[in-house]
């Protein structure tokens, strides 16, 4: 089973685990298994249309899945997934 690292603020929705192991052959399957096991995580990761929220990036080991096949990216038992936010901003308005 692949390991998923849970960011600190989301551990409250994952029974306080800082990492969990779930089954799945692709990133999408692993994330589905994760949110099935911990349903409260789903609204933090996905929007109402069922897509990953705009600020959510998923890394397979050191690779951003946007460049490796997105949620269809293959996963093995040796892999670690990380949930990483996109963050930007600034004083400028507009």
């Amino acid at each position, binding site marked *: 089973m692949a390991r998923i*690292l849970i*960011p*600190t*603020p*989301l551990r409250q929705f994952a029974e306080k685990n*800082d990492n969990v192991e779930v089954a799945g052959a692709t990133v999408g399957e692993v994330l589905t298994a994760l949110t099935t096991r911990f349903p409260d995580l789903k*609204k*933090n990761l996905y929007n109402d249309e069922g897509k990953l*929220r705009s*600020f959510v*990036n998923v*890394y397979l080991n*050191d690779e*951003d899945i946007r460049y490796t096949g997105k949620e269809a990216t293959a996963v093995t038992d040796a892999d670690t997934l*990380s949930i*990483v*936010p*996109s*963050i*930007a*901003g*600034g*004083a*400028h*308005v*507009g």
Partner: protein
Amino acid sequence: MMHIERGPWREMVNHAQAVYPNECCGAMLGRIDGDNKTVSVAMVLDNVSQGSQAARYELRPEDLLKADREARARGLDMIGIYHSHPDCDAYFSETDLKNSCPWYSFVVMSVQKGTFNHANSWLPNAEQTHAEKEELTWPES
């Protein structure tokens, strides 16, 4: 509420003043105990925003991944992100809100004419439509 210890606070203020008139950004690590957050480590990160950085900042996701790994290695929690507003107040701007993540605290530091002036901490919601002010203290506050 959030408290930032003396060491990381000095580092954050020095960072914000050093890059003035541009915006700085970084990560804050520490411990979370219920609603109480204590920042014990500040990680200076690169502002990779393209073009002028006087009113914009952007973090590399890879750097946030490193910050999360650093927190885990030290047995700490990733608490939030800091950035500066040169010659502006420490409000949470529309740009801040639209590019935020609801999981973390966002400390905004106002730097006026090159010198730290004041700071606020903000908690944005998941829809990126609103941010609540969070009580923030530091050694000289």
